[in-house]
């Protein structure tokens, strides 16, 4: 049994909140470069240049890439040989979020759903915990902005609709979302599981690095076809018209009930933020 102090978890979460919101990943910067080259619309090209310049300013001046620094979505893979000591595990994560959003000058966006009063420290975090073999703790911080999160969907299809049914709904959904989720977007698609698991599967699809295909050849082909179809919609950067609506489409699939065929779409904006650390 390895002991990990809750203070260490707090410190790691604090740093991940700040780093994920200030420094855009290399995979995203590369995708923006490639997108700018492929984009045919002059306004669209200009948007790509603005986004690259924005990422540079954020990095150099250490300010948030986007003012919407999101709800703090935290994925934890907790090794089963780890014993967390010193404080409540969930409280340790929330304390990290509290400190990170304060010290990083990040916006606090968490509020009471009815009264809309702000909790003022961006807690509670959204925590997804899974237990894994080993004696390490892997923490992934994926701040999620409201604009793109609002363009999410879950549908319980009939199995008779098949793979084409899923593909058509993804394309139709991106079309409806239009300029709202801040294109160029990353599209996460979940297929299978149950109502709640398919939504989480779509969200996890967004954590995969850009440029990496699904190892399943059928799903890799589906991702490629969907990217082409989504980009053929013409929505373009910021919805102002153009070739590049999405930087990538990621599909993840898990088995489902013989009566069910769940699917979900979770969209990320171009500020495709996530950072991880291992304790």
């Amino acid at each position: 049994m390895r002991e990990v102090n809750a203070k260490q978890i707090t410190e790691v979460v604090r740093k991940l909140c700040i780093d994920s919101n200030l420094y855009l990943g290399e995979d995203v910067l590369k995708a923006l470069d490639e997108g700018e080259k492929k984009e045919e619309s002059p306004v669209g090209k200009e948007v790509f240049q603005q986004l690259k310049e924005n990422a540079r300013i954020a990095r150099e001046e250490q300010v948030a890439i986007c003012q919407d620094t999101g709800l703090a979505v935290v994925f934890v893979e907790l090794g089963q040989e780890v014993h967390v000591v010193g404080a409540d595990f969930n409280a340790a994560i929330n304390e990290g979020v509290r400190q990170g959003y304060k010290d990083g000058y990040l916006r606090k966006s968490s509020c009471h759903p009815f009264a809309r009063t702000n909790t003022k420290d961006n807690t509670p975090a959204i925590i997804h915990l899974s237990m894994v073999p080993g004696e390490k703790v892997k923490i992934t911080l994926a701040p999620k902005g409201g604009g793109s999160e609002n363009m999410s969907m879950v549908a319980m299809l009939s199995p008779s609709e098949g793979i084409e049914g899923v593909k058509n709904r993804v394309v139709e959904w991106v079309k409806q979302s239009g300029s709202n989720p801040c294109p160029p977007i990353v599209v996460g698609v979940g297929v299978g599981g149950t109502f709640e698991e398919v939504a989480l599967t779509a969200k996890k699809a967004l954590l995969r690095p850009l440029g990496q295909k699904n190892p399943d050849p059928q799903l890799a082909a589906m991702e490629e076809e969907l990217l082409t179809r989504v980009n053929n919609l013409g929505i373009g950067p910021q919805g102002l018209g153009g070739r590049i609506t999405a930087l990538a489409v990621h599909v993840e699939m898990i088995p489902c009930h013989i009566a069910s065929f769940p699917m979900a779409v979770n969209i990320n904006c171009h500020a495709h933020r996530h950072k991880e650390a291992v304790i």
Partner: protein
Amino acid sequence: MSEPIRLKTPLKDADVEKLKAGDKVLITGVIYTGRDAAHKRLFDLLKEGKPLPVDLKGQIIYYVGPAPAKPGHAIGSAGPTTSGRMDAYSPRLMEIGLKGMIGKGMRKKEVIEAMKKYKAVYLAATGGAAALIAKSVKKADIVAYEDLGPEAINRLEVVDFPAIVVNDTKGNDLYQQGMAKYAR
């Protein structure tokens, strides 16, 4: 691309009527921030026939909830939020003289109709380019609803704030035009 049109606030009917969907603009002067919660309060005050904390005649509202300013900065990162959530309130504000709205994302038909009726425009700023946009904000002061935190109404002094006209006073829509041009 044509050269950007320079706009100075407050705006008159003639200033907005010359703008066409697709025009790039650079805004200089005072603009006000406002998003969901502030809009609801303004809307409710008008419903009760009470005065607003800011005079919106000829003004522009920027849909933004900025990040906190670091020491030495006028404002934190400050990109646009999704405008559609303000659709329920915007026509009423245009009715009392609001001339411009800055945000990102699509507006409802009723809002586009109100822009034609009351002579106002909807401008898009680049969503997510929040650190870049913040550079054009020289001063920020809270003028109402401090309790709303990032949703408080700020008076911003901006110089060459970059935006693009999405909906003009003739009912044109750049989102639809742009998509039609590049769809295949």
